[in-house]
């Protein structure tokens, strides 16, 4: 269960070159709160994801892990402030096909958007850890940062994760995307998207190229970047690209799920047993 499809997030800096030799015009700083996911993003799910660890489930394991750290710390006579629970929005495919939301494109361009649950968890962790005494920190994390009570808790919380998921699901999920790129319907949609983009003054063969443009390595999105991203989203809509792409991948997932039904059922059962154990750790917490 090591693999989960992930909702993407975070503002990621990098270096930028701008356009035509001129310095990039900086767009206004991204809003502090990311736009709420669109209905399309919320609905973008694939059959094999049922067998993977969801974002909510991963957060549940982390909660159990944190509780186990607390038990260990208590046993050593040290205090531990448990982290507040977070509610995770399940949008694992927000960026699968690049930027597909107008509001995200207009504000963030191709930069990553930090999801509220990630940001909250990060802030809570940071505040809690900053308040630790040296003794508490060493007991919790050891000298290298990944030892101490945390290492014990981590090993326990993830102990029964079904390892078999790794190879099978990873292969299928990657194969789905790779196969889709060779699909003639998607290639046709790419051409339609590319023509649309060219009509707006942007030259890219496909949306993945647009998202990977090295000019977007700036700390903040430039106006050129947000303009490109807005056009990208509009052209995806015009070309029906997300619908075509997701339909191709959904068909692949369904076939793969049927082909590997037995193995996947075993995985699902093992995952359910593991997560039941994890939830028991949480429910038994004071």
């Amino acid at each position, binding site marked *: 269960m090591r693999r989960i499809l992930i909702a993407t997030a975070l503002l*990621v800096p990098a270096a930028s070159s701008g356009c035509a030799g001129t310095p990039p015009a900086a767009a206004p700083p991204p809003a502090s709160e990311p736009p709420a996911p669109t209905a399309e993003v919320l609905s973008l799910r694939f059959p094999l994801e049922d067998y993977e660890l969801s974002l909510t489930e991963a957060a549940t394991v982390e909660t159990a892990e944190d509780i186990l750290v607390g038990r260990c710390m208590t046993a050593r006579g040290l205090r531990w402030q448990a982290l507040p629970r977070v509610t995770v929005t399940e949008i694992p495919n927000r960026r699968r096909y690049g930027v597909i939301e107008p509001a995200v494109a207009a504000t963030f361009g191709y930069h990553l958007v930090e999801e509220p649950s990630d940001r909250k968890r990060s802030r809570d962790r940071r505040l809690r850890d900053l308040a630790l005494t040296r003794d508490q920190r060493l007991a919790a994390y050891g000298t290298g940062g990944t030892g101490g009570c*945390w290492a014990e808790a981590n090993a326990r919380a993830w102990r029964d994760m079904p390892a078999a998921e790794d190879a099978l699901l990873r292969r299928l999920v990657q194969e789905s995307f790779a196969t889709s790129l060779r699909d003639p319907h998607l290639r046709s949609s790419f051409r339609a998207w590319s023509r649309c983009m060219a009509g707006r003054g942007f030259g890219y063969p496909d949306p993945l190229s647009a998202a990977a443009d090295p000019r977007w390595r700036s700390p903040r999105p430039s106006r050129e970047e947000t303009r490109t991203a807005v056009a990208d989203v509009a052209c995806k809509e015009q070309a029906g690209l997300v619908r075509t792409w997701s339909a191709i991948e959904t068909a692949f997932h369904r076939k793969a799920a049927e082909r590997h039904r037995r193995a996947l059922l075993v995985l699902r059962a093992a995952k359910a047993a593991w997560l039941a154990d994890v939830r028991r750790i949480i429910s038994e917490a004071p």
Partner: protein
Amino acid sequence: MRIRNRILGGAALTAVLVGSGTAAVGASTSLSAARQAGHSRLAASEASGEAAGGKLWLYEHDGFKGGFAGFTGTDRDLTDNYWYGTSRRVDNGASSVKNQTRYGVTLYQNVGCTGAHSYERPNSEDKDLSNNDIRDNRTSCVYFHR
């Protein structure tokens, strides 16, 4: 952040290996031992580990062999990262991974964090990112859930 996530280049490797007596590459030191020493020293030298909670290590080959590169935070574009001490790009070159951090890390297939992606749980390792039908070496973005 970009700089923090960058991997040290060849000059840095030389400094690490030669600048330290114990890790110097000598006639009696095997390549793997030297490599391991360099790896450890790199890890140690960059480990604000106690605070940061370790690093994510990508490896060029299966079984944690070949070039290696360490990350302490998100990097959406691995095209300008190189295997430690080499001129070979990390982008699309990772075949195994150790997540020696307290955080989950998502590996994305494409620059800009698009496409297929997978999750490496905290404190885990995967000696073979490949699969049977498509080639491995597809990691182009790392995203830290920290």
